[in-house]
């Protein structure tokens, strides 16, 4: 991936802040949703309304730990393949993270801009929809997402840890984690997945057939690549390849961002009672919905 010094700089700064932050003080709430104080500020959220999206912006929307870094890499490789220009990250790519001057600076960035976000649909700046930016919505099954989220907290040395999986699971289900409750995020997006400018991507599908997934993303973005180009990007974008170069691309946090990437790892942590609780939550929130079907919950969470 491109020179990521800004990216790494920002992460190092956030990790430094995390060192002095206890888990109980990690979050602040803005409009009912908890965000990490190490990455977000209320000033930035207030300034977010001034953000001006462009028609050729590429928005990557996902709940945390659902593969946004993976898609970020794929999209920047696609841009490189069609423009022969390495995609530069002059800012940390997560839209809502950083200082409040960020959006002013972003006005000067060349197109296409990649904007990652973990914001719920109704919290996104209106200009994204008004200007019909392309939105890739990335989902991963909630059980593996929860497990990955825990490992991120408990494996990265400077991030506050949870005492146990059981403790984390309780907080995850209550939405007392960064960016709030998975199911709220999902319910919010469910009604908006069929828009012309929206493309749904399932993490598990990418794991199963990466080349096919990359091809679909390229077509959605209007990039026309040869089979050979798709294959090359596919080889460079396997989870193993990403993990191998994660230190260079993401700094100290890299190996933790690309930990296992397995489908079904949840079975090693979820107790039967927790499994039941999440199945019931899924049923209550997403059963019979368009997103519910797209998530292939039976295959990945009840196998």
């Amino acid at each position, binding site marked *: 991936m491109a020179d990521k010094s800004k990216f790494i700089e920002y992460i190092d700064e956030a990790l430094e802040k995390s060192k002095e932050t206890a888990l109980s003080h990690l979050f602040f709430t803005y409009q009912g949703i908890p965000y990490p104080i190490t990455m977000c500020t209320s000033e930035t959220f207030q300034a977010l309304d001034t953000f001006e999206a462009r028609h050729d912006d590429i928005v990557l929307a996902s709940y945390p730990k659902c593969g946004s870094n993976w898609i970020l890499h794929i999209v920047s490789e696609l841009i490189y393949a069609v423009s022969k220009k390495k995609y530069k990250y002059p800012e940390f790519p997560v839209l809502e993270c950083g200082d409040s001057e960020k959006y002013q600076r972003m006005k000067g960035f060349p197109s296409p801009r990649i904007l990652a976000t973990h914001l719920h649909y109704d919290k996104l700046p209106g200009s994204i929809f008004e200007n019909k930016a392309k939105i890739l919505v990335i989902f991963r099954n909630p059980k593996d997402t929860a497990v990955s989220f825990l490992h991120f907290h408990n494996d990265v040395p400077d991030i506050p840890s949870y005492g146990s999986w059981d403790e984390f699971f309780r907080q995850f289900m209550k939405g007392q984690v960064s960016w709030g409750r998975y199911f709220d995020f999902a319910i919010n997006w469910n009604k908006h997945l069929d828009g012309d400018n929206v493309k749904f991507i399932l993490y598990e599908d990418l794991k199963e057939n990466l080349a096919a997934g990359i091809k679909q993303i390229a077509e959605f973005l209007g990039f026309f690549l040869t089979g050979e180009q798709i294959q090359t990007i596919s080889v460079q974008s396997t989870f193993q390849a990403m993990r191998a170069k994660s230190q260079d691309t993401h700094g100290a946090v890299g190996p933790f961002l690309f930990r296992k990437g397995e489908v079904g790892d*949840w*079975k*090693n*942590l*979820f*107790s*039967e*009672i927790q*499994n*039941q609780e999440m199945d019931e939550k899924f049923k209550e929130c997403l059963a019979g919905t368009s997103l519910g079907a797209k998530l292939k919950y039976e295959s990945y969470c009840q196998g």
Partner: protein
Amino acid sequence: MAESEAETPSTPGEFESKYFEFHGVRLPPFCRGKMEEIANFPVRPSDVWIVTYPKSGTSLLQEVVYLVSQGADPDEIGLMNIDEQLPVLEYPQPGLDIIKELTSPRLIKSHLPYRFLPSDLHNGDSKVIYMARNPKDLVVSYYQFHRSLRTMSYRGTFQEFCRRFMNDKLGYGSWFEHVQEFWEHRMDSNVLFLKYEDMHRDLVTMVEQLARFLGVSCDKAQLEALTEHCHQLVDQCCNAEALPVGRGRVGLWKDIFTVSMNEKFDLVYKQKMGKCDLTFDFYL
């Protein structure tokens, strides 16, 4: 509890070295050298034997049996040291010599497999009550037991302990063989085969079965009073403040087993229970 007397190793390594094999069954160290004497132990027709694999609800069953057979009051039972009244055959205390001399009717407990019990029992010379518990709750309870005792202070993970259980590597050998062996004798006239879960699901029927089996004659009113007393015992056992919360409840395993562990366990269970038609309630 009497089991705390057992000198049992603390680490997985020691676990291997301290147990000993007797005819292919792993037994606790205190059984060494006395298996022949146990086989020849003299049984009386008035004896009542309570046999279980460890952590199958032995303490609760002994109190219910005592209550049904002696007509005792549950509050009275709470004040007695019932373990002294119901010795465990193979334990070092009080020992075989003392058990031999106890006055009739004797209530004797054991965790030994059917084939290692006194041969007179096999000939139908006294009553045997066997209680089985669903293996998922049992292994959780057995693990917590190993962790809690000073003499055991087991330091392995639950996953590792569960693997031992599935591989028949715990004291008293294979749970799967233990229950199946008794299940094969459930029709013997001197054997009553019970399930722990029925204490929670249908105590009335269990008390009736016990009364009939023990030859205790009682009318409907007496039976109701007896059942009510037994209910109190079950509640006390499962809600005692000094104990881990809900340690006696059915479905305890669902808090502890991971989904992956449960899948593995189900495979082993299916394989080891084979064509046996014994079934369990894993939750109520």
